[in-house]
């Protein structure tokens, strides 16, 4: 029996026509017609400007778009470069668009990309989000250059609005830092690069057959790279624009982040329970990473939904939380909006108790992750209130302080991890 591959026969034929490459740049997509053309053009310009002698291919892995995304990719691939008149291709720059099976899932797209990189023996591979509308051709260089200098994985750092990425700042970054001893600002990257050998190691993972191989896969692979102590570097890419209609489905976002994080804690328990030296992940070209434009976020609604969640989900919280934490949350829910504060210590304990409950599977694991959503709304309310008037430095200090709290509460996690509830 031949080895089963995620790549379709037609796609393999197209890849074989391309032959071996030095660089593979991939754009996963699903109904991204509005932005993908610009992204592909920027990638072409970046490749031709910074890597004119490299054998390169741009691959679009599409999840079944119905808005002509694939046609736009093909059109952008053959359009004249308007970015610079003196940019000329020294080699043929191939562009391929393929549609993977099984419906839109970023993990499946990534699996397709990694398998293609492995087949083409690519020396360096970059994945760029079609939603990165602020992309500049320089991103290609910033992502790929460190790979050619011997790094295994290049992760992005952006200048983002202080209220963007609330889940990353309040949950994923502090936990990843406390448990895996690595200061990676974007552990769930949208734009990143890796070496050919890392692609091979990614491909050998068993995660592709699991739920984490469909969504939140980028986070999973980053954590795996951290645990495996690969050579990591962070590259400052510039401003990441806030999407006009950000995906505000908090439940799915929670599954992609907290779900994957809790699952990784289960897998790598022996790693994070023993003391670790900090993994160096230097940031190349880093600049102040927070922008401060005013935003109209409804904090009142966050508070209301926190209070509503605490009152309605009591039977679920009784299965997950310790009575002390649960009582403290009930006390918070009784406070008025003006006096409400979800302290960092309590938030860290709450998250750790959720992760231990996930480990013990006290109820359905997906239900545990979903139950964290109303509590996160309470924490987001506090973060927004604390940093409403804050400068970039104060926001940074707030996040730093939260990380220290998670690190300080780690012994509590170790204590409750194997404890019978």
């Amino acid at each position: 029996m031949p080895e089963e591959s995620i790549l379709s026969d037609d796609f393999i034929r197209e890849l074989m026509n391309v032959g071996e490459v030095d660089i593979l740049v991939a754009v996963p997509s699903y109904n991204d017609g509005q932005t993908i053309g610009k992204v592909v053009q920027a990638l072409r310009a970046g490749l031709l400007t910074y890597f004119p002698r490299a054998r390169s291919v741009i691959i679009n892995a599409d999840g079944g778009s119905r808005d002509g995304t694939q046609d736009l990719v093909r059109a952008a691939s053959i359009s004249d470069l308007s970015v610079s008149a003196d940019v000329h291709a020294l080699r043929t720059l191939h562009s391929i668009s393929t549609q993977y099976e099984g419906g839109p899932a970023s993990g499946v797209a990534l699996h397709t990309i990694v398998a293609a990189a492995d087949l083409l023996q690519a020396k360096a591979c970059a994945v760029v989000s079609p939603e990165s509308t602020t992309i500049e051709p320089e991103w290609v260089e910033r992502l790929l250059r460190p790979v050619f200098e011997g790094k295994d994985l290049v992760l992005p750092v952006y200048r983002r609005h202080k209220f963007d990425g609330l889940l990353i700042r309040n949950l994923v970054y502090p936990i990843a830092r406390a448990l895996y001893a690595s200061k990676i600002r974007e552990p769930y990257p949208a734009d990143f690069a890796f070496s050919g050998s890392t692609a091979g190691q990614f491909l050998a993972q068993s995660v592709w057959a699991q739920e984490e191989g469909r969504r939140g896969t980028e986070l999973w692979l980053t954590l795996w790279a951290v645990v495996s102590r690969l050579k990591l570097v962070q590259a400052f890419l510039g401003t990441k624009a806030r999407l006009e209609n950000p995906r505000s489905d908090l439940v799915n976002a929670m599954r992609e982040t907290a779900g994957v994080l809790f699952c990784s804690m289960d897998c790598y328990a022996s790693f994070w329970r023993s003391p670790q030296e900090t993994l160096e992940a230097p940031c190349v070209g880093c600049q102040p990473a927070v922008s401060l434009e005013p935003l109209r976020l409804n904090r009142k609604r966050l508070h209301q939904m926190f209070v509503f969640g605490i009152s309605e989900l009591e039977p679920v919280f009784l299965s997950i939380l310790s009575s002390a934490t649960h009582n403290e949350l009930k006390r918070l829910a009784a406070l008025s909006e003006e006096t409400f504060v979800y302290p960092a210590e309590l938030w860290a304990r709450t998250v750790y108790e959720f992760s231990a409950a996930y480990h013990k599977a006290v109820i359905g694991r997906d239900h545990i992750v979903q139950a964290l959503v109303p509590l996160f709304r309470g924490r987001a309310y506090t973060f927004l209130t604390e940093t409403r008037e804050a400068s970039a430095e104060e926001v940074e200090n707030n996040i730093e302080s939260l990380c220290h709290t998670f690190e300080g509460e780690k012994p509590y996690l170790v204590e409750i991890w194997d404890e019978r509830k």
Partner: protein
Amino acid sequence: MWQSFISELVRTLDEILRSVARFVPRFLEMLVIVVVGWVIAFVLKTLLRSVLKIARFDKLFEHTGAPQLLRGTALPSSTELVSRFVFWVAWLGFILLGVSVLGVVGIEEHVASFFGFLPRLFAALFILFFGLLAASFFSRAALLSGVNADLPSPRLISLAVRAMIILFVGSMAFEELRISSRTVIVAFSLTFGALMLGLALAFGLGGKDLARRFLEKRFEREGPEASREREDELSPL
């Protein structure tokens, strides 16, 4: 005549003695079966209790809502209840087996029907157990979805989901046991129909204002005024 009476009496006594002589070994056999059956049932109970405790069966059952029900009716824990049930089913089986050894006319038929009933009993319990688990899972899923979607009264929705599944599972279990199956089906249909009608009326009449507000809000968003007033969405990632 006296002689004849005496001979009849002797013959009768002889027959009685023979019957007793035939019966006593069978009775002893029955006693042995019952005692051995008790020992086997007891061992089964002890073994099962230990296995269920190791498997944390009570914990598994906790989320079905059954422990609260058991506590409310002053019954022992789920593990104890299942162990005792297995003990009594096993021992009753041995008692009936022992009774059948006595050779009493008509008993065999009842014993056979008891053993014929056992698979149905286990099937009904199986349906009930997994039905309770499903009721717990889906009611919790409804509760979480309701809370996260900010729906009004998610607990009521969750309770309705649980009640409907338990009702459905209960009727299936009774159908399996063939206990008043028609009555159960009719009762189920009536209750389910009434519940659906009640919900339709409640949401249709009670929810018309909510639907109007929802539609107004939805279409107002498209206007230029609304877009100016629109709040920014939370960006979690």
